[in-house]
């Protein structure tokens, strides 16, 4: 029995190494004083310094923040409504509509939204990107909120109603505060998904506007440079903070 446990633990450890070593390599080379991601030459911050003086990169980072903030806010409102509705009522269409964008390959949403925006004669840019990001974020917020709803004790709202609270009062004073961790977790996930999205943004961005992932893509396409390691490390740090927060607030949300 113990022999099997050891074999199992060793193989699991190897898989953890497989998951983390590549990312660790990116981080380590971001501090390497060499243009090549090969030999270790010496410690430096110069790639970070270069990054903060790269105007295109800073514009792209600004765009990413604007898009992620606005799409997370709107997706949170819509996703919360959807999550509550999916928990409360037996619906047929809405759950399918909420899950389908998550289940389908990203490229399909990217190209179909491109066709859609062009058909409406909409110019591609920050607005089209934000509208697209909201579409794929709604589902994640909805699932997070739905999971949280099922952990709320129904007798609390029933008691409030028995004591004469209006449906609005009941929602405002009881459901919403209890739901808050699920909503915040959903919002943070939406923000992370938006900041990270490459595939869908690639199709609906048009020529003028760039986001961080698009910027990384165009840099990586040309050559592998330590500047990419630096921005990657910073992005990883940001994601790490956001996802740890989500895990604290609502452990169930990430698993759905």
């Amino acid at each position, binding site marked *: 029995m113990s022999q099997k446990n050891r074999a199992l633990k060793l193989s699991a450890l190897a898989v953890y190494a497989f*998951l983390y070593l590549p990312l660790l390599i990116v981080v380590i080379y971001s501090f390497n004083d060499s243009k090549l991601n090969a030999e270790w030459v010496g410690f430096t911050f110069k790639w970070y310094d270069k990054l903060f003086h790269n105007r295109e990169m800073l514009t792209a980072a600004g765009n990413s923040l604007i898009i992620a903030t606005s799409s997370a806010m709107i997706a949170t409102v819509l996703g919360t409504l959807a999550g509550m509705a999916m928990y409360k009522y037996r619906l047929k269409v809405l759950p399918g509509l909420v899950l389908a964008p998550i289940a389908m*390959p990203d490229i399909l949403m990217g190209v179909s939204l491109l066709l859609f925006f062009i058909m409406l004669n909409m110019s591609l840019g920050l607005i089209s990107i934000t509208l697209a990001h909201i579409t794929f974020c709604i589902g994640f917020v909805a699932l997070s909120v739905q999971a949280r709803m099922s952990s709320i004790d129904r007798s609390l709202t029933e008691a409030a109603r028995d004591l004469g609270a209006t449906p609005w009062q009941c929602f405002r004073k009881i459901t919403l505060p209890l739901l808050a961790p699920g909503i915040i977790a959903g919002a943070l996930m939406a923000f992370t998904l938006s900041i*990270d999205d490459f595939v869908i943004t690639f199709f609906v961005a048009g020529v003028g506007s760039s986001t961080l992932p698009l910027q990384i893509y165009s840099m990586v396409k040309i050559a592998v440079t330590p500047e990419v390691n630096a921005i990657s490390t910073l992005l990883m740090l940001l994601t790490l903070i956001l996802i740890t927060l989500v895990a604290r607030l609502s452990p169930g949300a990430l698993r759905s």
Partner: protein
Amino acid sequence: MQTKHWQQRLLTLPPMSYLLIFFAVPTVIMLFASFRYAGEYGGLAPWYSYEEGKLAFDLTLENWQRLFETDIYLRLFAKSIGYAVLTTLLCILLGYPLALMIARSPRKHRDLLLLLVILPFWSNFLVRIYAWMIIFSPSGALTHMINSLLDIFGLAPISLMYSPTAVIVCLVYVHLPFMVLPLYANLEKHDPALLDAAQDLGATRWRRFWKITWPISLPGVYAGSILVFIPVLGMFAIPDLLGGTDGIMIANVIKQQFVESRDWPFGSVLSMVLTVAAVLAVLLGAKFGQQAGQTR
């Protein structure tokens, strides 16, 4: 009763209309675009004309016929399905021991161990591909090591970058968490008494696994397989950055039709085929999962 109805509409209508407009309608537009002519300078040509009081429609089946004119596209679809199947199998192979280990560790450690699987999945997608570009690069340590080994045996050096192998390794890397999570969710619920009983009756470790744990975990295996198979089938970024010419998949051609050659109608045809393939995969996986859940 009246307020309940009103409440339901208030909750359902806003998200539903948003998703109808920005998800369902674009999909229908894509289906429609697959029957239109390409514009002179790329994009789409007008689909109707109105001349001398006569309305004429300019729609065609040509784009769909093109799909079957050569076997290039069908073979590429087959190849992509092959990549997706191989990736799924490798994810099961790597993900199963990990999920089992987490499910059998002390309860207080499980959340942390699981979070460690989820974290890389949430780090930027391009960063995770980029990490493999470094590892596979010709000047990288891995390539050096393999080639000096090959040199000892007098074999010609190989290049890891821009090969189908690089694509498969990165596909497995990116999608592994999708396999571990549903597997864990299933394995966690198994009753340890079943294994104890089997042991008391003299079943070996191996037999206990294949006769008890594996059959009960099948719904989790199917759920994870769908979550891996579908995104891999529609992947273009990984083959684009790591695949070279040998490693391209169907989504690379879709991207090429929409971005470089700007033949949107044909791009829409390929996208529709991919949509149907993805939907079929979901239905098939759900069916198998249900059967496995019932017969245990």
